[in-house]
């Protein structure tokens, strides 16, 4: 049984079809959803997280249809989204930010999460006082604190410097090695692709490529359209 199954999901806003009949399955791998601005990547992620509901099609998570579930129920079921624009609880400390979710799905080791995400040294700091790079890490840590079965990461390295992004990608690679399953929406392809197994490319809401990372590299149309040059994917 697939962990996640998306069957012909569509979502329109007025006359604009933001996501158009997208289908895919996911089991144990790490998936990247890529595409140009307006391709429907974040809309698709919001559909998975329950923040939007599909007009057509259905979403199945761990064998249950979750298409109409509210976000809290989907997250409690094990599929948790982090935000592109960080949303920390600014009046709470880093530790409290994690503690909020720490008992939802059984016990978690917050110390380990804080170490893993490089937040141990600022655990007692109010989140509102942290610089952006730490807030991006906190966003990831909040997701991990829920002990997710599947983590939906919306542009986890967006806005970070190259060195900050490299550090966060190292963390994601470690998480992957430990068995954390992820769907990553990201613009910075050359940096994100090395840690994913499969890629879905969206364009104007439609799937134009779905395959392994290696196939993605070999697909000349995709490379030309989204990477701009033949070696951009690194």
């Amino acid at each position, binding site marked *: 049984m697939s962990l996640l199954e998306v069957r012909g999901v569509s979502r329109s806003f007025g006359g604009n079809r933001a996501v158009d009949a997208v289908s895919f399955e996911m089991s144990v791998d790490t998936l990247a959803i890529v595409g140009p601005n307006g391709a429907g990547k974040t809309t698709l992620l919001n559909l998975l*997280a*329950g*923040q939007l509901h599909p007009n057509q099609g259905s979403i199945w998570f761990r064998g249950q249809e979750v298409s109409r579930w*509210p*976000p*809290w*129920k989907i*997250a*409690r079921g094990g599929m*948790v*989204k982090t*935000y592109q624009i960080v*949303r*920390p*609880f*600014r*009046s*709470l*400390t880093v*530790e*409290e930010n*994690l*503690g*909020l*979710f*720490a*008992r*939802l*799905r059984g*016990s*978690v*080791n*917050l*110390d*380990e*999460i804080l170490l*893993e995400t490089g937040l141990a*040294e*600022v*655990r*007692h*700091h*109010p989140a509102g*006082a942290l*610089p952006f790079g*730490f807030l991006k890490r906190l966003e990831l840590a*909040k*997701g*991990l*604190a*829920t*002990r*997710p*079965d599947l983590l939906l990461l919306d542009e986890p390295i967006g806005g970070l410097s190259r060195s900050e992004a490299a550090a966060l990608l190292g963390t994601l690679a*470690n*998480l992957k090695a*430990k*068995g*954390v*399953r992820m769907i990553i929406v990201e613009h910075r392809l050359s940096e994100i692709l090395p840690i994913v197994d499969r890629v879905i490319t969206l364009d104007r809401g439609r799937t134009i490529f779905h395959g392994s990372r290696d196939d993605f590299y070999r697909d000349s149309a995709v490379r030309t359209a989204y990477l701009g040059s033949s070696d951009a994917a690194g």
Partner: protein
Amino acid sequence: MTGPSAGASPPARGWSKIGRGLLSPFYLAAIAVILVFAWLAQGSPTSFFALSLVLASIYITLALAWDFSSGLTGYVNFGLPFFFGLGAFTAGYFSWYGNRDVPFLLLAAIGVGLFGGVLFSVPTLRLRGPYFSLLSLLLPLIAVDFVVTFWTQLKMPTLGYYDLPFLGNSPGAELVILSVANAVLLTVFILVKDSHFGLVLRGIRDDEDAVSSQGIRTWPYKVIAFTVASGVAGFSGATYGMVVTYAGLDGFGFTFLIFPILIVVVGGMGEITGSVLAGYVVILLYQYMFQAFTEITLVVFTAATIVLVLFLPRGILGPLRSFIRFMRTPEGP
């Protein structure tokens, strides 16, 4: 699966600060102030000073309820005076029909407040922001209007319920009862604020969607907080009714909205302890100013509030709190 969160490691308790608040200087100061004022008033238990402290204590109870619900969640509730009035009316009703046992009247007021709180909170807290605030203002107004319209049919005495039993033998004794109640409430609310429940309420204030998107259904938390606040407001209303020995429509008045909010603003929203300290300052100042300059007291108070909100948005103790937190926070990243 699940990497760093998996495994048999024990639940992390580091984030849990239950009990820490009881060691904070602000909590200890608030308890000390309650005790000192209760003790001071015993020297002249029927004086204007003692009466003013009784009034301050009643407003502090109401302010604690408002801060616990609205201050922690960020949901501005204009409906609390309704439950205050309801508590006074409940005490008035039962004493009018022969039951003049003070503990019973207080418990009855709490019960009616809790019940009314559930009825009010369940539908209204599905709304957010200004929509909730507007409804919290309108529903009590409609309820009061209903009572006024059907006053005769409801067989209520023309002037409201009067001749309620005294809360205590003297203002000094009443102050002791109110002080104990406020100390208990303060302690409970501080414990709850530091608990996971309080953490969720504070998370709702910061970003409710983010709380919800990571697995917490926020609505029950809000309903519980506002129901508890309504019960406390009912208790507060009953004490007021038994201090003035009367329960009329003025119990639903906006005085019982404005002063608690003013106290919370002065004390710092969501800080809980600030409501106690600010409650004495605001009410004693108002009482003595009202004696000296009756006509301009409200004007001065309004102006002072505007100045306060502009320059000290986290209350008069805000800078001190920030300083203490700064000193306690380790070196920055």
